[in-house]
């Protein structure tokens, strides 16, 4: 916490970012949206918000996420329900990604494979207002095909373009009324960068805490990025 005398209390009423339910939290997500989904494998995946979006029956999504789901859970739920038009990811064909594999082989879903570091960096660039970046990753490979190659100081780089989304759905550990977030171990993964790169950021947090109870030094995602949140503890014990 801050040293004595360095905190100013909030006097104005602050906007309530807490949604009454997961269904309400995702109510304004439109068909055809580009949706970033946090998580890596089974870690830090916003399962409750995925379920809520599925229950809503949204269609034609482009999903940006590292993986394509684990058996019937996570993004596989989206896929199984036919919500997804296209996946942008780095690791589509894990052993447990049987749902995606079947759909892809049947020609029912489009796929863009991006190297994992370039995927994370493209999302960061989208959030940081950059027009792109030069990376050595992918030079001389088929994943650089159709992309501009620039030579800087004698070394070749691929120009990768930013990624942004209409909506990001995020799994966090703690949230306060501002929307300040912490994460849980490797559940952090893509979540913080995705928070920066979407027009609307919807969070499920394991725990809600009071304003001022998070040490300002340990907040990973400042609340300014967060549109609204639900408290996961109330709806599920899945961690």
């Amino acid at each position, binding site marked *: 916490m801050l040293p004595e*005398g360095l905190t100013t209390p909030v006097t104005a009423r602050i906007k309530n970012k807490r949604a009454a339910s997961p269904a309400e939290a995702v109510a304004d997500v439109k068909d055809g949206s580009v949706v970033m989904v946090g998580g890596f494998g089974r870690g830090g995946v916003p399962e409750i918000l995925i379920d809520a979006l599925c229950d809503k029956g949204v269609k034609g999504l482009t999903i940006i996420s590292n993986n394509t789901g684990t058996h019937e859970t996570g993004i596989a739920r989206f896929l199984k329900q036919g919500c997804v038009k296209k996946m942008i990811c780095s690791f589509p064909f894990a052993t447990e990604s049987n749902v995606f594999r079947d759909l892809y082989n049947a020609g029912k879903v489009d796929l863009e494979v991006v190297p994992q570091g370039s995927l994370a960096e493209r999302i960061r660039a989208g959030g940081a207002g950059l027009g792109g970046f030069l990376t050595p990753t992918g030079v001389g490979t088929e994943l650089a095909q159709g992309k501009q190659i620039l030579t800087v100081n004698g070394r070749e780089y691929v120009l990768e373009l930013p990624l942004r989304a209409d909506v990001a759905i995020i799994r966090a550990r703690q949230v306060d009324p501002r929307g300040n977030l912490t994460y849980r171990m490797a559940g952090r993964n893509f979540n913080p960068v995705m928070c920066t790169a979407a027009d609307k950021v919807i969070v499920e947090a394991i725990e809600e805490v009071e304003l001022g109870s998070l040490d300002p030094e340990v907040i990973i995602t400042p609340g300014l990025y967060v549109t609204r949140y639900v408290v996961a503890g109330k709806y599920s014990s899945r961690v």
Partner: protein
Amino acid sequence: MNVAALAKVLLTSEQLAKRVALELEDGWLVNVGIGMPTQCLPFVPADRDVQFHSENGIIGMARPPKDLKHADNDLLSAGKGPVTLLQGGSFVHHADSFAISRGGRLDAAILGAYQVAVNGDLANWRLPKARTGSVGGAMDIAVGAKRTFAMMTHVTKDGESKIVNKVSYPMTAQRSVTKIFTDMAVVAVMPEGLVLEEYVEGLTPADVQAATEPKLIIPKTVKPIRF
């Protein structure tokens, strides 16, 4: 109007700060530049929740410590004055701080200005005769904020209009200013041109036009500045 009479009607810098502060809406995140803009902080109406961003990684920058013995070198504004943190605020490093501004997360930025042009071009970082200047975060902030408010005196010490047809001072950011707040007027930068929204009491819209290089659009809704 002679200089002495004019001086009596122009807004003081405190009055100007009050007027700009009124422009900040409930729920906004706002960056304040060095100098005059910092003066706006205490004048935000108490019922509005406005958070301030400081380029040096402070989200929720607030007034100076009430007891200055608590002032801390590790909690300074961009202008290097002691500040505090609003409850629920946080810190980020410099690359993340500028990701906030370039990434379009600032609802507004309040910046000082040497010149603003009809198309919103901003010049505020160096004087033409200087070999170079201190740009700081001005270029990144002006280019990224959803709204850029220029806050300045209406004319130079030599009486020249700081609102211009084309900036002659070194450019900070093209087409970035959305509204101009001066000691004489509030002028909106619109696609159709500069719209005079408010003028200081004691002057007429025609007086403001006389002190302004470009032609102003003066709508029927034009009114005296209140703060």
